[in-house]
């Protein structure tokens, strides 16, 4: 099924009717599974209705794979239960942590990429894949802080994670751009070094300057159109690794569905013919 997916869109309640009516070839929709972990009601009803016409991707934000603890068993079971119900084409999570000692922090938090952390995260990814009975994709996060104690580059860390667990990767091109600006490295180098084979999905999103620090600190805000520089990085990676399911990710400041659908169509054009798009 994954091979048939082209470009897709974040699914928000505001878009349920438009998503249900969408007929774009290869289009798909991505949800945060945490918003659908309910016993019943109209949310699940909408998701099942849209699932009956389109492929769905479940993009989790709460497994906390980079916490120094196994994923919460109850949460993992809820995820597995939703996956059985929705039969998503893709399931993804983040190289980050959010739950720690019974507190959930609604963000994707950083950690020092040590060998010990790698062992823990590899175990957490394996455990998740064992319960879900499928391969998941792990996403590169956005970086803001200067963090000491890294023993691995992010690229090598992700490569090793795929080797140890067989997991795939989700390349978020906007996160690369934001991190490159904030931590002062060339985004092109990161994009060119990113392992291509394990990439199961790509994310494109908008960002915003920090309200206090301005352009010196970019925030991965998902509240704006995809930036020109991010489109260029996207075309660059697609030319190198070939077409992959690509999401236009939007969580805030939601425009009309047609506005997002135009961005989705642009990504689909690039997937269809990356060389023409570059010309």
């Amino acid at each position, binding site marked *: 099924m994954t091979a048939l997916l082209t470009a897709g869109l974040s699914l928000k309640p505001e878009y349920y009717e438009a998503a249900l009516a969408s007929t774009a070839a290869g289009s798909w929709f991505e949800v945060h599974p*945490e*918003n659908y*972990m*309910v*016993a*019943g*009601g*109209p*949310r699940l*009803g909408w998701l099942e209705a849209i699932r009956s016409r389109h492929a769905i991707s479940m993009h989790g*934000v*709460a497994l906390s794979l980079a*916490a*120094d*603890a*196994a994923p919460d068993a109850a*949460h993992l079971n809820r995820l597995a239960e939703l996956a059985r119900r929705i039969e998503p084409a893709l399931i993804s999570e983040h190289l980050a*942590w*959010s*739950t*720690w*000692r*019974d*507190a*959930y*922090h*609604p*963000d994707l*938090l950083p*950690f*020092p990429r*040590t060998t*010990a*952390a790698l*062992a*823990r995260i590899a*175990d957490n990814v*394996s*455990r998740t894949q*064992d319960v879900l009975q499928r391969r998941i994709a792990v996403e590169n996060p956005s970086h*803001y*802080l*200067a*963090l*000491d*104690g890294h023993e691995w580059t992010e690229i090598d860390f992700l490569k090793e994670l795929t080797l140890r667990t067989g997991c795939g990767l989700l390349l978020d091109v906007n996160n690369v751009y934001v991190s490159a600006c*904030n931590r002062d490295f060339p985004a092109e180098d990161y994009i060119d070094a990113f392992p291509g084979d394990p990439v199961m999905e790509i994310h494109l999103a908008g960002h915003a300057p*920090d309200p*206090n*620090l301005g352009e010196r*600190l970019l*925030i991965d805000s998902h509240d704006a159109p995809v930036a020109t520089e991010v489109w260029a990085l996207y075309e660059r990676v697609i030319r190198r690794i070939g077409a992959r399911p690509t999401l236009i990710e939007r969580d805030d400041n939601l425009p009309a569905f047609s506005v997002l659908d135009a961005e989705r169509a642009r990504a689909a054009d690039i997937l269809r013919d990356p060389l023409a798009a570059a010309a």
Partner: protein
Amino acid sequence: MNPLETRIPAPGALAEFQTGFSRALFDDEAPKNADIGALKAQPAFAVYRNTVIKACIDALQANYPAVSRLVGDEWFRAAAAVYVREHKPQQPMLLQYGTGFADFLTGFGPAAELPYLPGVARLDRYWTEAHVSADQQPLDRAAVADLAAGNFFRVWLRPHAAARWTWFDDAPVYAIWSRNRSDTPIDGEIDWHGEGALLSRPRDVVQWIELDRAGCAFLDACAAGATLAGAAKAALESDANADLAGLMSTLLDAGAFARMSPDDRNHKEKSS
């Protein structure tokens, strides 16, 4: 023994980092750990802190829209910020965040002048519970009408999974809540008396009606497992003038029940 258990590294530096980072996100005082202190001193640390706190406050505001509308955006977000510090989310489904918000408002000094506010919060919470509850077919009016006369008072009407009701002695909380639950303009005086509410979701959409004291007592009895006879008695003890036929009709229309047991019609079908 689960083979996975042997592969897990013991908690160490990463655990220590996460404990310090988590505290630095929610607490104001300077971190004890020097490395975490240095991280918190970076302007970029505020991105995480702001994102975490804002997401919690946004979730609370989304889950308590009538409270927010009553007190205004600024007051709500200031109160929510206090709540967030005292009650971090314990699970990631933020639709369920703030289960203790009504109780918090009861003890929250600045809310003392609005004694009905915790009740309004309780009804906002009931709306969420009704919205996400398990799907159930509401009990059909005909099923009750078909009951053989001899069985009528022996059946137990089981409340629908989505049904939530409560009685407020001191204030017209239902009127205040229902007028503030939507964006429609509010006009007209509110008659000041005790009031109850019933929220239900017989199908997709959460519905609500005012429910009198006898109605609340009736549903309380049903929820506790009383037969129809017991529930009727409870309603009449609450209000000797209660109109039981009218009440049954109102509750069935609202989709307050899911099943009755024993199901008189099933018995008939099985025996035929």
